[in-house]
């Protein structure tokens, strides 16, 4: 992948640029564990954020298959509920189920995607940035506009399964203000071959149509920087359902879901004095979902026709004060209100108000840096008692203190060590708390205590540049929210009883070589993740001490990329070891290891002036492997996509 080439360069910008600038304003304490940064104008072969994250060590993308299938991320065996996804520092969240479908987020308009296992430690963060178990940060692209005040880009991707994915982006400078307008359409029929108990069949009802429209404005205002993003996403898709034995007379599924997500977010950051700065951020989102099982088309379906509307309003104030040069103190305070309305029977219409505050301090010498914070989260829930059926539960206030320390040392020029310890909590989702006949409104937040280190070594031997990273870690997840049946199989409840101990190691080795000029370069990356995630929930049961579902003990991969003037080529192989679909690690529930390989070849033509045309092809799953990430959800075989991009 081309982007891998750039990740090395992007990580080398960590030096004092201007002597006058206070060090805490530019030096982070810990670095991102993984980062992909795009050069302005670079063609991005991946379309979805989830495709990039798949190649990050420690990350597992839970993929239900196809363009429209749900794609969530687990990091170091922390469930997706613990993984915060942030766009320009503002969380993309979902109070209903605490999961973000990263298949919906396009790489278009993004300048960098990074993963933090430790807390990201920079000035003027939102309080929510301090309280995630792990965090994926999406950073908006800042257009260069070197030669003119406007730039256009049109891109087309298309190929297998009737996938048609055109996008358009326009960047414009109006005085000191930058305007970006983007649009992207995606359509795919989702019809791919899979193995149905020895018979080849085609996946049905996995089609998707989606449209994204967004616009970002940024500029300077009253001596500060501001930005505003308006984002709209609409999709209509089918869920093909799990592969089970099913009478030939009936379809597997006729379930459809339509979504309409709208949000507006923005902020204003200002340095009031040399030492005091502040950042104000806000977001309003309004997400509507319509889910229909269409029993008239599928007599096997339970007749559900449900509508949900989630709203969220969020404001954040971050303040930073430099005490003396390498030392600063930050105070971040966030307030958020979530609501969920639905026509589900006995639905209690929950409302949640969350205050998050963080007091943080940074100490940033060139060779030794330290950060510590204490964060507080308090959440007030209110639900409509009259619809609560037989519940005698009361509205509940939940709160938690979340401390963290991070250290960075560079004892010698070629060695860097980051280390962190932190404890975070995730609030129970509205589904955990208030799902009819199952929710338990007395739940406590789920805890994740983590310690970890990143040991980075860089070296140059002749023409070769070496970078190695070793990241050992230990996570303890406690009070994990687990669904437990009560006396009746129809009446389950959620309890804080799960315990998981995770001991792991991420390792990465990159070797780069310049092949004469800056535009000729080759790079090889080896990735490996060891994760022993043991279920310690149920002493004495035969699942105790077994590997938790879906986490492989071993996984890894090899990525190769070559840039040769106008040509670029990349190859990625990802290997996932054996897993089990449940804590009973028996043969019946074993999921076989799999390995898939992807490749991309691109060529860039200069077409006069500043315009250029890029043409490329991408092959995913080159060897047409049959595999499943989630049991019952087969993944597609070989996918061929053509990429055309024209910039002017």
């Amino acid at each position, binding site marked *: 992948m081309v982007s891998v080439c750039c990740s090395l360069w992007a990580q080398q910008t960590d030096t004092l640029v201007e002597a006058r600038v206070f060090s805490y304003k530019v030096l982070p304490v810990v670095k991102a564990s993984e980062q992909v940064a795009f050069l302005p104008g670079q063609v991005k072969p991946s379309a979805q954020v989830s495709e990039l994250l798949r190649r990050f060590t420690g990350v597992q993308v839970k993929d239900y298959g196809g363009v429209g299938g749900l794609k969530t991320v687990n990091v170091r065996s922390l469930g997706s509920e613990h993984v915060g996804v942030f766009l320009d520092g503002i969380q993309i969240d979902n109070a209903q189920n605490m999961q973000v479908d990263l298949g919906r987020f396009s790489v278009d308009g993004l300048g960098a995607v990074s993963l933090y296992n430790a807390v990201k430690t920079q000035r003027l963060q939102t309080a929510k940035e301090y309280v995630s178990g792990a965090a994926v940060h999406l950073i908006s692209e800042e257009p260069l506009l070197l030669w003119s005040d406007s730039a256009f880009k049109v891109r087309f991707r298309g190929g297998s399964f009737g996938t048609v994915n055109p996008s358009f982006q326009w960047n414009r400078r109006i005085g000191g203000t930058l305007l970006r307008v983007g649009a992207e359409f995606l359509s795919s029929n989702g019809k791919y071959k899979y193995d149905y108990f020895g018979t080849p069949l085609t996946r049905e009802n996995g089609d998707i149509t989606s449209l994204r429209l967004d616009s970002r404005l940024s500029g300077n205002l009253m001596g500060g920087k501001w930005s505003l993003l308006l984002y709209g996403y609409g999709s209509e898709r089918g869920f093909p359902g799990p592969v089970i034995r*099913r009478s030939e007379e009936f379809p597997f599924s006729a379930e459809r879901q339509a979504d309409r997500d709208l949000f507006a977010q923005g902020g204003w950051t200002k340095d009031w004095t040399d030492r005091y700065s502040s950042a104000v951020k806000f977001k309003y989102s309004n997400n509507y979902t319509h889910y229909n099982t269409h029993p008239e088309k599928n007599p096997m379906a339970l007749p559900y026709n449900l509508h949900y509307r989630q709203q969220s309003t969020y404001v954040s104030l971050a303040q930073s004060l430099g005490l003396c040069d390498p030392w600063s103190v930050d105070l971040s305070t966030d307030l958020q209100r979530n609501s969920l309305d639905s026509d589900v029977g006995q639905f209690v219409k929950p409302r949640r108000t969350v205050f998050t505050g963080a007091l943080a301090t940074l100490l940033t010498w060139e060779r030794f840096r330290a950060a510590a914070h204490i964060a507080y989260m308090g959440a007030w829930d209110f639900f409509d008692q009259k619809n609560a059926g037989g519940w005698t539960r009361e509205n509940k206030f939940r709160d938690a203190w979340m401390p963290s320390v991070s250290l960075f040392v560079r004892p010698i020029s070629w060695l860097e060590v980051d280390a962190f310890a932190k404890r975070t909590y995730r609030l129970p989702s509205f589904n955990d708390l208030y799902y009819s006949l199952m929710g338990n409104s007395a739940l406590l937040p789920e805890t994740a205590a983590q310690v970890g280190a990143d040991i980075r070594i860089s070296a140059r031997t002749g023409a070769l540049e070496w970078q190695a990273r070793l990241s050992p870690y230990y996570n303890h997840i406690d009070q994990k929210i687990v669904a437990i049946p009560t006396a009746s199989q129809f009446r389950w*409840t959620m309890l804080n009883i799960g315990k998981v101990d995770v001991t792991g190691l991420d390792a990465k080795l990159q070797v780069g070589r310049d092949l004469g000029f800056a535009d000729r370069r080759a790079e090889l990356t080896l990735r490996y993740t060891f994760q022993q995630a043991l279920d310690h929930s149920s002493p004495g049961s035969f*699942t105790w001490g077994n590997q938790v579902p879906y986490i492989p003990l071993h996984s890894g991969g090899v990525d190769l990329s070559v840039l040769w003037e106008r040509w670029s080529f990349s190859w990625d192989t990802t290997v996932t070891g054996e897993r089990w679909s449940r804590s009973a690690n028996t043969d*019946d529930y074993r999921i076989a290891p799999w390995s898939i390989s992807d490749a991309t070849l691109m060529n860039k033509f200069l077409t006069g002036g500043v315009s250029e045309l890029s043409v490329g092809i991408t092959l995913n799953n080159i060897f047409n492997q049959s595999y499943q990430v989630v049991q019952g959800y087969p993944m597609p075989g070989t996918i061929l996509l053509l990429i055309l991009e024209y910039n002017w």
Partner: protein
Amino acid sequence: MGACQKIDQHEIPSKDNGLTGIMVNVDNFAYEANKVFLLNEGSMGSNNATLDFLRLPAGLYITDAFGKMNPSVGGGLGDVGNDIAVINNELWIVVNNSGLVEVVSRDDETEIKAISVPTPRNIAFDANYAYVTSWAGAFSKYEGYDLVDYSNPKGQVYRINLKTKEVDGHIEVGYQPEGIAYYNGKLYVANSGGLTLPPTYSYDNTVSIIDAASFTVTKEVEVQVNLNDVYSDGKGNIYLTTMGNYWDVHSGLYMLSAANPDSPVHVADYVSVSTINGDTVYCIGTETEFEWGTDHSYSSFTVKNGVKTALSLNLTHTTPYSIGVLNENTIFVGELALSSYEDEGQTKWSSDYFNPGTVTCYWHGNKLWTVQAGVCPGHFAIY
């Protein structure tokens, strides 16, 4: 019957004689049966329903017999086994989320025919037909019906010819019908309304009574909310279990007596698990079924002629899910996998619907043996 009166039986030569299993103690059973079948439901979406059986008099417990005897059937038994029953020389297995009623030989478990029925639930027979309850609404375009109201369609009973094994009719009953029983020309269908969908958001409380000869619903009798199983005692009494509404109406057992068939009589409360053997209904339940905790203690009882009698089964730290009765002294209980957790320093016990459960044999009220079964061991049939 005394415990020592072992009825002499010859091993029937059968294709499934080669199946291996676990030897269990059946030496002192008094029985008149060849096999005790156990249908493991599996978990929805996991395609792991399995059929186990206990071979008598050999005392051999064999797991996944359908899978082993039918390797060419892709996907095994399927997704969510919901009922089994023996008729003639056949075992009929209702596989809910596969949309199939699988008919196999009772002697060797080989497939005779898989019959398509949408969302099938439970099965009953008369001399010529099998009757299967189904949640699928009658509006289905597959059957050429017009779309009526698909927000909460009433369910149906499908009729299948025992000889041809073809569906030859279906009629509408109440909301989400569950159990079905046949007695003397009539079918009794327990309507649950278990989905509690709009516009009423409430459970059904009716039994639909069908005249088998004309295959029409002749009467609906109101009993109590969320009906579940229905049994005929062969003497004109119809027993019905209800699941309650999980917050102010407990589960229970009701009877439509031969003398007064239109006025249901409340017989007992707390019926989570039940079956009938002859004219005796066997029940397991818990008084703490409304409590949100998971550590329940269960009690068991029998009902004969509407009279409740305690039944001694040691159900401490168990999670009963089904009951099968070979005779009054030999009772099998299917149990869910057991899990435990710590809550404020105390160990609490809970059931587990995802990992394999067990079957325990009680002999004269004492645990005789326990073997591992499949996930959610839910339904017994004996021949």
